[in-house]
């Protein structure tokens, strides 16, 4: 199975990097439709030293996530959340961790909160994590932001309070000091 994924991912990367216009556009669709199980392989390329392949693999990861987060695909979204959460919590390179955190803010629900909460304590990732939690509408995300306030530096506390405040804003009054 891994070999199948590897070959498919290789084709996608090659098409995105050096294919003609048609192949590049087609790769966007095919790349997005990769199942969440392909995430570790894509992440490995993303962690590599070849900057072109790394960037391209990052784009594939984005496409996979957004495809999984489409309407009516709850199981795929949950599976993708699980895979991204693993990337956040392991010893991945910083750029990959930041990407996974950012994507969790779009695809993740309450199940993404534990992984993101831990990142609130890491100076390298805490601002990205609080922004991702800000986007997740679940009560668990709000609780995580509130809980982190008492454990954070005065400077980061302001950022957490900003996120909590922004979550409450409504379109009809945003931009106005009431």
């Amino acid at each position: 199975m891994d070999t199948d994924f590897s070959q498919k991912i290789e084709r996608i990367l090659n098409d995105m990097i050096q294919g003609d216009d048609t192949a590049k556009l087609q790769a966007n669709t095919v790349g997005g439709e990769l199942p969440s199980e392909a995430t570790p392989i894509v992440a490995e390329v993303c962690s590599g030293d070849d900057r072109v392949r790394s960037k391209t693999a990052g784009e594939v990861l984005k496409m996979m996530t957004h495809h999984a987060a489409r309407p009516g695909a709850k199981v795929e979204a949950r599976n993708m959340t699980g895979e991204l959460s693993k990337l956040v919590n392991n010893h991945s390179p910083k750029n990959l961790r930041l990407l996974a955190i950012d994507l969790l803010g779009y695809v993740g629900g309450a199940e993404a909160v534990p992984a993101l909460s831990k990142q609130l304590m890491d100076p390298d990732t805490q601002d990205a994590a609080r922004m991702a939690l800000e986007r997740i509408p679940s009560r668990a995300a709000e609780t995580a932001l509130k809980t982190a306030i008492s454990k954070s530096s005065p400077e980061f506390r302001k950022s957490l309070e900003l996120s909590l405040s922004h979550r409450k804003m409504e379109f009809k009054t945003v931009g106005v000091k009431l």
Partner: protein
Amino acid sequence: MTTSRKFSRREMIGKTAMAFAIPYFVPSEVIGWKGRTGANDKIIIGNIGVGGMGINHVASDSAAICDVDDGHMANAAKRVTQGTPFLTKDFRRILDRKDIDAVMIATPDHWHAVMTVMACQAGKHVYCEKPTSRTIEEGRAMVNAARYYDRTVQIGAQGRSTSSGRAIADYVLNGMIGKVNRVDVWHVLNFSTTDWGDPQPVPASLDWNMWLGPAKWVDYNPIRCFFNFRWFMDFGAGFIRDRGMHAFSIVSWAMGNDQYKGVVTCEATGERKTVGCYNVPDTMSVTWTFQNPDWTLTWGQPGNPPSQNPQGWGAIYHGDKGELLQFGGDGGCDTQPKAKDFKVPPGGKEVAVSNDHRDNWLNAIRTHTKPIMDVEIGYHVVTLCILGNIAWTLGRKVTYDFTRETFINDEEAKRMLRGEYRAPWQI
């Protein structure tokens, strides 16, 4: 200048309280009336962001200049020949000044909403360069602030103050090419680079932290600024939100779409960048479909440019009785002679006339009327640009409801209605 406004603080409170249907009290400091003086019509202006487009807004009598780059500020200060302008790298010091009535904002996009909202809260009228905002929520915040604090906010889509832009609108609105069922906008590709944008020392002349402001932190590299912020999704988001806003401004005018409150679908494709630090798409193809009246708008990079202007950008209006070309859409907007020579017949539709975007704004302030590119129209137009980028990012068709100001049946897209902010900045 402010004494020329014909309403009292009490009237204003009553008016805005009705608008929001919530009882409240607004201290005079909040709405900027306290300490504001001036019995004549002269409007005292401060400039915020004076590199790039902003330098063109610096008049000989500018009262204050703000820029985070020393070089920009010094260059702009040379333009002021009447008096000595107040110079600062922190725009809040301009907002603090009670003697300044209005500000012209020409910073990168990620500052537009925060500055406009704060300026309105400080009682300043605003001329804000296009694109209106980064996100849909920011556009709404700008409209709310303008209305609540009763400030005049003009968006710098200067095509609305050109005779050709007006000619296009009058020509199409009066049915000269029949019923228009499709408008195709074409544009050259987004820029590319092989530079990876690795961190570099910040020049002493630049306040990088303030340049970033509300945006997510990224380490400095000159490839990110000043002009090239356009090729990053978190900052300029590509030509579609840059010149696209200009082009769509004229299209929206000509199609009578400024007040459209229906549903629009949007789908997009585009090649992803695989080299260098930019992350907007290389190519882009976007389609918006409107209902009642039914028509389609497309954005193509490169699209299908007409032979008359293969290297530039513009729009082709396809009507059932003919076609019309729009070249550009900004202050250099042009069109075909048949539209320029067209005279609106008695009883025909005629759009408002503005021959100078800045003067139109100043006049709107004085007469307490809406400017030609009022912030609410700017919000509507930039929403189209933002929808295109969201559809491309998600890789699927999205459906947006202009009345409810949200996406239909797409939770992930809804999360893209708003952005995040770096403390202490907020809208």
